[in-house]
Every structure is written in structure tokens, then in C-alpha cells.
């Protein structure tokens, strides 16, 4: 029976944080497809040691593509590894995470295999012999449902939109090394620079995020966002308008083209709720909106809101939180 191939990158010799949800959705889909076998391709540098940790997640087989190069693997090498895995497994469905290098890898792989692809999906279901793939379009203003008529079908999954499997199964995956064909070396990785969050938790893992938008008025007012985040032990986020204006670095951008976040508490100050921003916070469990425009889109997504000038609201809010948290 044609199976499901999951492709995961290992970053910095660690499994990507989204691996568990990729495998969770992959195994659920395989069950809906009548118990299709699940194979994971683990590709990266020095990843051999990570293979055994995938068995208890319900995976039948792990292919390990270990890069021996001194530099991080190039996009071409990852593509060659993915293509080799697809040719060996002949799966019906290939899933990747829509983040980091996998975003482009999915599309490049699909075209290499002459397959259809839907990117950045937020839900999958099986209807008859079709996999129905839900994907937000127009920056999240609308939802589209697609099916793919080729085999394999390639889908990239939006980070944090899918659940990982809670209960580990007693199982061991069969681990096999995958040999990756030589590439022509047209792309050479000179170096990889990882940006570390300066203080506090990293945006995409944070339980609490305080984000600011253009409504703050200017970079001089940004400190109110930072102060609030600091008091709550949270991370700082920003809208694209703010990062484009250069008030804060692009790495703080939350939204369609920035980070996808899923905190328990997401506090917005001066954010109108443009669809580009909303697309990145669909996983946030409790949104708080402070905005002077009662009709702002953000209030549709908020659990709590205050309408008014942030300059009057936020200092009192911050002060009271300080008192409450002792």
C-alpha cells in the first residue's frame, strides 16, 4: 500500500521543534488512508543519533540522510535527499513543515517529482480517495480547499496548526541509511548564522507575547511593549508595518511572512489586525486588544479588549500587573 513520507530537517543537530506535530498529522492521515505505512526522512548533518527517538511517535521506518559536509547542507543536497527518499518509498502523500528550509524544499521537490503541491495547509482530511487540503489564502481573508490529482501529493503544514500525538506508542522504527546522490555544487553554503533572542523566550515558543503595531506612533514608544513583555516574562512581537518601518528588527515580525506563534496569551497594542498579521496568530489561545478604533479587525479575534488611547491604558495596565505579580 502506498504510504506517507514525512520529511523533517534537523536543525543544529536537533530535531526541528515541529517534528512531533508533523509526525502526529502524518500518522493520523495514514490511518485515515487505511493504515498506510509511515516513513520519515531525517535529513541533515550528524542526524544519525536522532533516528531512534522517532520510533515511539508511531513511525514505521526512518530513512537517515546524513550530510558529511563541513558546512550545513545546501538546499540542493536536501532536495537530492528528498528526491531519493521519494523514489525509494513511492509514497502517495509527502508532508513537510511550512517553515525554514522545508518551505522551499517542499515546492522544489513537488516540481522535481512532477507532482502537485499545496503549501501552508492548516487542515487535512480524507474524502473517498481524495485528500482535502485546507489552506488560508489572501493573507488569511479566505479559506480554500484543494485536492491534488497527482501521486504523490505534496503538502506543507503550517507550524503549530496541527496537534502532535500525546500518547507515545511502544514501537521501534526500522532505521535505514539513505545515500544521497552528488549534486552539481551550484549552491554552496558559506555559513549559517543563527540569531539568538537577546532576552526572554523565543517568539515562536513563547507562552506570552506582547506585540506592538503602527498605532504606537513611533519607535520611541516601543519601550512600553518591552516593559510589559518583561513583566509578564514574555516575548516581544511586531507587525510587518513596524518591522518594515525599521522600528524593530525583522526577526520580531509576527504574521504571514514572519513568525507563526501559538502563545496562551497574546497582547496587542496599537495593532489593527491586518489579515497579514492575523495569519500568524491563529494558534494564539487568548488575544487581548488595546486599540483606539472600536471597529478594528483585531477585536474580532480578541477575548478581552479595551478601546482607547494606549497612552492612557497601558501604563495603568502595566502598573497593575506589576502589583498583581508582586
Amino acid at each position, binding site marked *: 500500500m502506498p504510504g506517507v513520507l514525512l520529511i523533517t530537517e534537523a536543525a543544529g543537530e536537533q530535531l526541528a521543534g515541529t517534528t512531533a506535530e508533523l509526525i502526529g498529522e502524518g500518522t493520523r492521515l495514514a490511518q485515515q488512508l487505511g493504515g498506510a505505512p509511515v516513513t520519515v526522512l531525517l535529513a541533515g548533518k550528524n542526524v544519525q543519533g536522532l533516528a531512534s527517538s522517532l520510533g515511539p511517535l508511531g513511525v514505521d521506518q526512518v530513512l537517515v540522510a546524513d550530510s558529511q559536509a563541513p558546512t550545513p547542507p*545546501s538546499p540542493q543536497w536536501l532536495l537530492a535527499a528528498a528526491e531519493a527518499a521519494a523514489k525509494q518509498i513511492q509514497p502517495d502523500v509527502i508532508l513537510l513543515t511550512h517553515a525554514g528550509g522545508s518551505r522551499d524544499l517542499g515546492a522544489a521537490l513537488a*516540481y522535481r517529482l512532477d507532482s502537485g*503541491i499545496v*503549501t501552508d495547509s492548516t487542515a487535512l482530511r480524507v474524502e473517498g480517495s481524495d485528500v482535502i487540503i485546507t489552506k488560508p489564502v489572501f*493573507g488569511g481573508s479566505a479559506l480554500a480547499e484543494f485536492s491534488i490529482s497527482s501521486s504523490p501529493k505534496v503538502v506543507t503544514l503550517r507550524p503549530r496548526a496541527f496537534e502532535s500525538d500525546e500518547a507515545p506508542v511502544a514501537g521501534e522504527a526500522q532505521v535505514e541509511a539513505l545515500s544521497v546522490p552528488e549534486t552539481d555544487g551550484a549552491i554552496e553554503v558559506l555559513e549559517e548564522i543563527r540569531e539568538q533572542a537577546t532576552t526572554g523566550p523565543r517568539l515562536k515558543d513563547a507562552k506570552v507575547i506582547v506585540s506592538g503595531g503602527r498605532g504606537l506612533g513611533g519607535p520611541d514608544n516601543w519601550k512600553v511593549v518591552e516593559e510589559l513583555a518583561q513583566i509578564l516574562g514574555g516575548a516581544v512581537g511586531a507587525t510587518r508595518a513596524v518591522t518594515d518601518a525599521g522600528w524593530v528588527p*525583522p526577526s520580531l515580525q509576527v504574521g504571514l511572512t514572519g513568525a507563526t506563534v501559538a502563545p496562551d496569551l497574546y497582547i496587542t497594542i496599537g495593532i489593527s489586525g491586518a489579515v497579514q498579521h492575523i495569519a500568524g496568530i491563529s494558534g494564539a489561545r487568548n488575544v487581548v486588544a488595546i486599540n483606539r478604533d472600536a471597529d478594528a479587525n483585531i477585536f474580532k479575534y480578541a477575548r*478581552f479588549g*479595551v478601546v482607547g488611547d494606549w497612552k*492612557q*491604558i497601558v501604563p495603568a495596565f502595566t502598573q497593575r500587573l506589576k502589583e498583581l505579580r508582586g
Partner: protein
Amino acid sequence: MDIVVTVKQVPDPDIPPTHFKVDEATKKVIPPAGVSPVMNGYDAHALEAALKLKEQLGGKVTVVSLGGDSARDTLKRAIAMGADAAVHVNDPALNEADSTTTARALAAAIKKLGAFDLVLSGRQASDTDGGQVHLGIATHLGLPSVSPVQKIEAATADALVVERIVEDGYQRLKVRLPALLGISSEINEPRYPPLKGIMAAGRAQIPVWTAADLGLEGASGKVQLRRLFVETREARVELIEADTLEDAGKKLADKLREARLV
């Protein structure tokens, strides 16, 4: 350096969500009255990057777009910004097609244009948010591709050094030419068309190519759009009110504590 830039005309992404409507029967967006479609944002950054490379190294910038009659306006804007030539791929059979067919058509058009050193595309379009067509073009043309690119650090006649955005950081890559890059918005600020450019755009002849011109009759897609809809969303916000906004701020903090969120 001869550069081809792919551009797409999209509905203005700044349409307020309340004005955004779709026709579920035809699975299309209903264009709001009085709002003109625009050049896809990332494509404008790709064009700007091409114009900068041309200023630095010489050569020619050609823009290609696939779309209905109105896409001509976007090509004119590209010429106004400084592109030397434009080609419009316009055929009902292609305009409604899926991304796999779009990639094939644009690749065929680029091939028909002749020799080039570099193809630049936006990293994704703001309507479909797919981010895949440019990678398909690269595959069809047999080009190495890098995406999303936030900086072109160095350029010579046969290679580029670029920065590619990855999770939590970026990679510096050396890419042999010819190649294709998917451009992200961090790279530059697209210029406004100068008056001279606007006049050039007015005079420009833009050839139109059909599926037959590209040898693509009967092309069939692989991805089917089954349904397009807007999720209805009931506001369930609890608005905190008080005599003064300061008090509302305090009350908000108390509410969050009550809900055990802080």
C-alpha cells in the same frame, strides 16, 4: 547581467477585511469597487533588486507576467519603474490554471525570451500565498534556486553571494549563474516610477503570448480548487469599560488575573 523578473497582478492586499468578499459559486474573489489590483508586493522588491543589479553591472531587465488583460497595467508599472521590456502571457486557458501550469507557462515564456543570467521572482504572491511557482519555474528551466532571499551581498557575471532566510537566522550562500532567486521584502525599498519612466511606459509595446505561442495547448493542472469561502467569525470580545481609560487598564489586568492568564 540580463535579468528576467516575474510579476503578478493581485487584488490590493490592503482591502479592509470587511470589504473582502468571494463568490463561492465561481470560487473567485469579488473585486471591491474602486480598488485597483496592484503589483504583488514581493515582485516589486524582486524588480527593484533587478534594477539595482543592472545599475551595478549593466545589462537588461525584462518582466514577464501571466494574467488577464488588466495585468498589462502591472507590466506598464514595471516599465515605469525602469524595466527595459515586458511580455504578457495572456490566454484564458492559462489564466485560470493551477500553479503547476502557471510555472510551466512562465518557464516556457522565459525560455522563449532567449539567453539570461538570472531570474528574480517574489517569494510568494499575496493572493494565493503559495510560494511555489518560482521554484517550479526553476525546476522547468533546470536552474539552481534560492528562496527566500533577504540580501544580495555580492554579484559578478557568473555568481552571486546571497543571504537566505532560514528558521532563526540566515544562510550565506554562493550561487552559480544562471540561477533563480525568490526575493523577500527585507532586501530593499521599491522605487516609485520616475516621470521619465511613466512616459516610457506609455509608449511601450508589450507583446502578448498565448498558450499556442508557448506550445502549451491542452496543458492540464494537478491541483484542483474545490471550495473558496470566507470563515464567518462572530465577535466574542469582552470589552473592558470604566470611568477612565486608566481604570479600564487596571480592570483589564484584574480580568487577566481572574482568567488565570497572568
